[in-house]
């Protein structure tokens, strides 16, 4: 399936947003504002969702009209007929599409199984917003049929109804678990610092220091010293 590449999974969710307003503000704009207000990096609620590599939220308000000049096979073909009538050229102009609903788009790249990941979203998505604790329901609150979601299984099934399969998923990174990736990054950082610090020292000195270094960084211990998800400062 194109939605997976090894152990990495690409999740694409388009949740239609209800038509309506609260105090003159549309549901879509309320969701947009809530997404914009989400804390970033290590404080993002996604940092608490296990195994999230990279993820995003945005509102799809509408599709775009292709008004730009372009090299389009059908359009060029119509040029021949336009010698006789301008109708062919007009018919070949791009058509104007509009969406009837706005969509909340959630796109995530993560490690592992989809059900487990979605359960992790339901269980762990948490953040403070203006002193109030929020969970995942706060973002999806005004989406169509989301009021029927009352528990974890309901959330998993809702997200799957909104899911679209990828036609092609390209993994330019690794497909290791996030814990493994973060531990590796931590080790790379620490070993680089070690190499610089001990440059030019004697063999005995380096060996002694290296023993202490290994004790400190614990290379095989994934739950030991490491980077935290979303860590934005060394």
């Amino acid at each position, binding site marked *: 399936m*194109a939605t997976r590449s090894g152990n990495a999974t*690409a999740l*694409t969710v*388009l*949740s*239609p947003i209800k038509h309506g307003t609260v105090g003159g503000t549309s549901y879509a704009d309320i969701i947009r504002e809530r*997404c*914009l207000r989400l*804390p*970033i*990096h290590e*404080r*993002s609620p*996604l940092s608490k969702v296990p195994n*999230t590599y*990279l*993820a*995003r939220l945005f509102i*799809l308000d509408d*599709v*775009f009209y*292709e008004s*730009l000049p*372009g*090299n*389009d096979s059908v359009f060029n073909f119509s040029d021949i007929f336009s010698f006789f009538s301008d109708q062919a050229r007009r018919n070949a102009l*791009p*058509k104007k*599409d509009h*969406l*009837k609903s706005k*969509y909340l788009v959630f*796109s995530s790249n993560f490690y592992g199984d989809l059900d487990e990941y979605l359960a992790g979203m339901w269980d762990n998505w948490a953040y403070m917003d203006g002193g109030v604790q929020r969970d995942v329901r706060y973002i999806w609150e005004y989406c169509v049929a989301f009021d029927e979601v009352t528990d974890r299984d309901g959330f998993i099934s809702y997200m799957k*109804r*909104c899911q*679209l399969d990828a*036609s*092609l*998923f*390209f993994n*330019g*990174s690794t497909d290791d678990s*996030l814990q493994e*990736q*973060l*531990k*590796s*990054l931590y*080790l*790379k950082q620490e070993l*680089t610092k070690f*190499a610089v610090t001990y440059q030019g020292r004697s*063999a005995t000195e380096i*060996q002694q220091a290296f*023993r202490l270094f*290994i004790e400190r960084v614990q290379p095989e211990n994934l739950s030991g010293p490491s980077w935290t998800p*979303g860590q*934005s*400062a*060394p």
Partner: protein
Amino acid sequence: MSNIAGKAYAMNVITPIRWYKVWINRLIFKIALNKPSTLKGLVTLSLIHYARWVIIPRNGFPHLHPSQPKENLSYAYMLFFSNFNGSWDQYVDSFTFAIPSGLDLFWKWNVRYPKSVPLTPFHCYIKHNQIDTAHYYNAYPMAASNDVKSAKKVKKALIDFKSVSLEKSPDEFFVDYNRLLNDLQSEFGEMRHTPIVSLSADAVKRRHLQSQNQ
């Protein structure tokens, strides 16, 4: 708008395809999927964490409830999501200069796609069809895609070195240690905050810091 999270940029592009050409795009993606060598150009660019293409048929937008109006579209749509390192210009230009034919093969079935060469119309096409991200999360804002890949090599080499060389005599240890550093020299590098590549992204960051401190 928050297209940037640390060293990663989130690109979202939605473009129409005539419904009767969708099968060609799907076929090309299928070939690319089954013959990874066709994606060699993308691998060589090495600035992408993860990217994907999603085709939504004309009647493929999720419809969840009778109260939701059904979409009535003339075109199918292709969504492109990318997570890459560097600036927007660097990314788009690298496609044009490094893999123009591969890029054209993926997009040429889309309405009014101008081809990736020359550069200016291609820039206009992407800008015209791009949607800004409202919230972008990156599990390792300080790391580029190449850092993640090189870190994997560092970890393996370090564990191997620890088990083989740590208890050797100081002189033998020193020889192995120098070999380790020599082997890993292209994988090293200290990771830090990204420099400011976008004033708006920096403003988002400062706004969040300000709200955290209140």
